[in-house]
Every structure is written in structure tokens, then in C-alpha cells.
């Protein structure tokens, strides 16, 4: 598998040159990063050119890197990660594109290339607030009608901001600020690099 990926990585270097911001082969998976400006064109080539022919977009998701490694993150905050599959070559590829702006993240849409991107982009927009430029129907998909905020951002609390209950006085369902206390049983710990190394002992 990895020989196949090395060949693919080389082919991509030859074809796209310095348009590829970074290319990394790890754990038997190839990850490439491209700038937001080149993203649409890059994806088009990956789909249409026979040496790549990634016919299927398997997954697209948003990522919020703001608290990565407890503040060790230096780069841009939001990224869209795409998993592509080539049925003809039996190979997978991961493409990551960072949104240029942290305040108003936006990335080009690939719905015109792969129909399956439609709902995945709606989901990334709903949960992370990443706008996909050129998407024809960018509505919320998973959250409630009238939901405020983007719940998977790292600054959105796990218990949310509002809760819903039936109010007997008004005779209807109302929203009110959450009444539960946030609770963390097992704290999140990032250890030094060598800690808990499975190959050790």
C-alpha cells in the first residue's frame, strides 16, 4: 500500500509542484495540504485526470484547531478535511485546506465536482460555521430549527447555552439558559512526547 502512496505522492509533486503546501505520508495514509485559493482547481484535477481519478468523495469535515495541544497550535484555526477514494486505483487521499480567515472562515465548495459533498459541507457549516463559497443550498442540517451558534467549535461548551423545557404557565415549550453545571471526571492531559509510548514496556 505504501509503495502505491509514494508513487501517488511523487505524481502529485510532478503535476502540481509548489501548489501543494505540504505532503505527508504517515500511518499508511497520504495527507496533502493546499492553499484555499488553489483548492477548487486542485480538486477538479484530482477528479478528472486519469492518473488520479478520485471518483468518490468519501467524507468532508470541519476541524477547529484552536486548542490543539493545549495552545501549541500556531497555524490557522479552521480547516476542512476531505477524504477521497479512487475506485479505479484502490487508493485513498486526504486533502486539508485551511480557511484564510479565523473570524469568517470560508472555503470554496466542491459540490459541483462531487454531489456527495452537498450534505457534508452543510454539516461542516452547521457545526463549525465554515462557509462554502458556491454551495447552492448552505442551510443548517443537524442542529435544531433556529439554533444559534456553531456547536462543535472549541469555545462552545459541551452542555450548550440553552435548554428546552415545557412551561406550564405559558402552556408551551420554552428555551432558558442551561441549569446544569459542567463536569469533567477525567481531566484532559497532554503528556510529554515519550510518555505512554506503547512500544515502551
Amino acid at each position, binding site marked *: 500500500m505504501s509503495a502505491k502512496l509514494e508513487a501517488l505522492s511523487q505524481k502529485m509533486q510532478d503535476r502540481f509542484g509548489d501548489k501543494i503546501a505540504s505532503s505527508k505520508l504517515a500511518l*499508511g*495514509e497520504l*495527507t496533502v495540504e493546499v492553499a484555499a485559493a488553489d483548492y477548487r482547481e486542485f480538486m477538479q484535477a484530482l477528479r478528472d485526470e486519469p492518473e488520479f481519478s478520485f471518483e468518490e468523495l*468519501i467524507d468532508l469535515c470541519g476541524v477547529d484547531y484552536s486548542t490543539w495541544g493545549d495552545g501549541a497550535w500556531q497555524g490557522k484555526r479552521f480547516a476542512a478535511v476531505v477524504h477521497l477514494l479512487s475506485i479505479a486505483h484502490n487508493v485513498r487521499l*486526504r486533502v486539508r485546506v485551511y480557511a484564510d480567515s479565523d473570524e469568517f472562515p470560508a472555503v470554496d465548495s466542491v459540490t459541483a465536482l462531487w454531489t456527495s459533498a452537498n450534505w457534508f459541507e452543510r454539516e461542516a457549516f452547521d457545526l463549525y460555521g465554515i462557509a462554502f463559497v458556491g454551495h447552492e443550498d448552505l442551510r443548517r442540517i443537524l442542529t435544531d430549527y433556529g439554533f444559534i451558534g456553531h*456547536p462543535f467549535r472549541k469555545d462552545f461548551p459541551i452542555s450548550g447555552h440553552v435548554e428546552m423545557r415545557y412551561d406550564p404557565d405559558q402552556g408551551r415549550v420554552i428555551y432558558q439558559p442551561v441549569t446544569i453545571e459542567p463536569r469533567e471526571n*477525567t481531566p484532559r492531559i497532554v*503528556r510529554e512526547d515519550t510518555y505512554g509510548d506503547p512500544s515502551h514496556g
Partner: protein
Amino acid sequence: MADIRNYTLNFGPQHPAAHGVLRLVLEMDGEVVQRADPHIGLLHRATEKLAETRTWVQSVPYMDRLDYVSTMCNEHAYCLGVEKLLQIEVPERGKYIRTMFDEVTRILNHLLWIGCHALDVGAMTMALYTFREREDLMDAYEAVCGARLHAAYYRPGGVYRDLPDRMPQYRESTWTSAKKAKDLNDNRSGSLLDFLEDFTERFPKYHAEYHTLLTDNRIWKQRLVNVGIVSPERAMQLGFTGAMLRGSGIAWDLRKKQPYAAYDKVDFDVPVGVSGDSYDRYLVRMEEMLQSNRIIKQCIAWLRANPGPVITDNHKVAPPDRESMKSNMEELIHHFKLFTEGIHVPPGEAYAAIEHPKGEFGIYFISDGANKPYRMKIRAPGFAHLAAMDEMANGHMLADVVTIIGSQDVVFGEIDR
């Protein structure tokens, strides 16, 4: 004739044929669907966000709540992802147990699917038949992990424990006479493997009954043939995987193409459809059940002959056994650290996908080296399939929408996550 013929119809979210909480907003021209707009998210529990606040092992039971009719397969993808990041190997016996239970799960899933699908289309008897067989397989689930649905049996590094030597027994009660209990316990007298072997012997006969009931049934064919046709090109565009892709004529099965667990060591065939309609998808899934049966038989034979460990002996990942914990200081520390803090996974990212009964089920992890995932994304097959609802239902009658939902085999636990 009235001037306005188009109208909007609300289907669900509480509808027996919607397979859960699906709200479909249908724009109709008379009885013909012009546009289908599925509204999902009514079962959204933010599993991915919850996983960010739980340790790597604590999220395993959440996987059961995704696609709640094929629970062990969900866990499998999750464990494969963690194992990939940790770069640890699962013992051979653990791999075979996973393979066997993945196939048990596939039969369980397809039995529920064919039962409900037939029920939606109007064949009541199927549900009664398939739930009879599901009962046996859920007993196997119960024997191995103590739960009939939400198993939590797989663990990063292997499976939680070895297969049991005895099956749970029926007891005489107000509802079960002594004789009936004895009859029911007849094939439960041996080990779990004996019980499953007995099932694999019986299953082809049951399977033939389903064929008799449906395959040449005139009503069944009228409702399924040429309904929801998807061409191979469109199937790839729409992100189809699993039986949906194979129904359209593309021979793509991750168990063959990108083998995991012990699938490269067992023998099975991959059925492929021709026309890409609901009837072909039905035939593909029916044949898959027989192939699963074949795989289970091979796994049983291997597991009988090859005892051994079922979970990794790396105690930074899997807990040590109680006995060594009580005599060995280091094992005690391992146990304590593992259950208070959890596994530490090296920074990096990994995507692990399996051939789930419904299609490609993938888990994408981003780790920053903490005892919890930084980001987990669940790639649910049903999500992509349901997204194609608009295209598949377009131009069909209202009643065909029910057939298409059934043939997509959607479960809202995984779509809404």
C-alpha cells in the same frame, strides 16, 4: 380541474415507514414527487463532540448508539482507528473473533432490514420470520458480552474477553413450561461456538424461506423493480458505498479491496447487481447473508483449533488481568493509570474504514497526544445514502418513496450521530 396542482407534503418525523425520525418535505405534482428534502438531525446527540471530552476507551459504548442495529461493526471501525494511531497489533484470535462477530452483525442487520423493508412494502410475514432468527443471534451477543444490542465488546487492542464455554439457559417460568424450556435449551447445551455452528447449519433453510416469500412474489417485484435506479457513475458521484454501490454494478468491497481483521484469510464472494434498482439491492443483500454465513463457518473452525490471547498484552493500552495485578507492582500501576487517565495516543491523524453492513463506515481521528481524541469524525454510510434521496425519489410516486427509504437501509442513529 383546480389551477394549482403542486403542493407540499410533510412525511414524518413520526412515521412508521421512515425508519426512525426522518422528516421528509415532499413537493408533489399530483402523486408524483418533484423534490424531496430530508430534514435530519432530530436524533442528533453530538457524539463526535462528546468523544472529545471522553477518554479513548470511554467512547467505545457511544459507537453502539450510532447504528444501533449493527453495533459491533461500529466499534470495530473505532478500535481500528485507535489501533492505527497507536500502531499496535491485535492477536490473531482477536482478529478472527472480530471477523466472526462482524459477520454475525451483518446478518443481524440484513435480517432487520429485510423484515422492515418488506413490512413497509406490505409483506407482514417477513418481519415475523426474520425476528425469529435475530433472536438466536442476539443470544450469541448476550453470551459473549452480556448485552443483546449495545455490546461494547471490542476494545482498542482486541476484544474484551474470550468466547464463553457455555450459553445462557432458559428457565421454567410462568410463560415457559418445563418441556418448552428443555426444547429451547437443546442447542444451548454446548459452547457459544457450538451454538453458532448450529445456527449456520440452520440458516440456509431459513434463507430459502425468505426467497420463497419475496423473490418471485408479484407484488414485491412490482414495488421494487425499476424503482430508484442509480447508474454506476451517479452512485460514485453520490458517495455510495457497500450494497448501494454493488447494487449499481461496481464490485467494490473493502473486505476484499482493503482487507482488515482476518478477511484476507477467509473465503467468500462479493455479489454485484446489474441494473441499480431497489430489486437488485435487495438481491445483493440477500446473497450477502449467505456469504456471511460462509465466513462464520470458517471462523468457527479456525477458532476451535487455535486458542490464544484475544487482546494485546501491551498494558499501556489494555488492562492487565486481575491475578497479575495482585502480585505485580507494575501491573497495578498500569491498571491504575489506565482507568484513571486512559490511553495516551501519539499525535497524528488516522482514518479507519470498514465494510459495515450499510456501506463504508469510517472513523477519522485527530490526536494531539492527549488521553482524549482532539477531533473524531464519524463517516456514516447512511448519511451519504440519504443525501441521494432527492435524486432517487424524483419522478417516482409517493408510495415509491417508502420503497426507496427501505432500500437505502437507513438508521438514524448513525445519520444524525
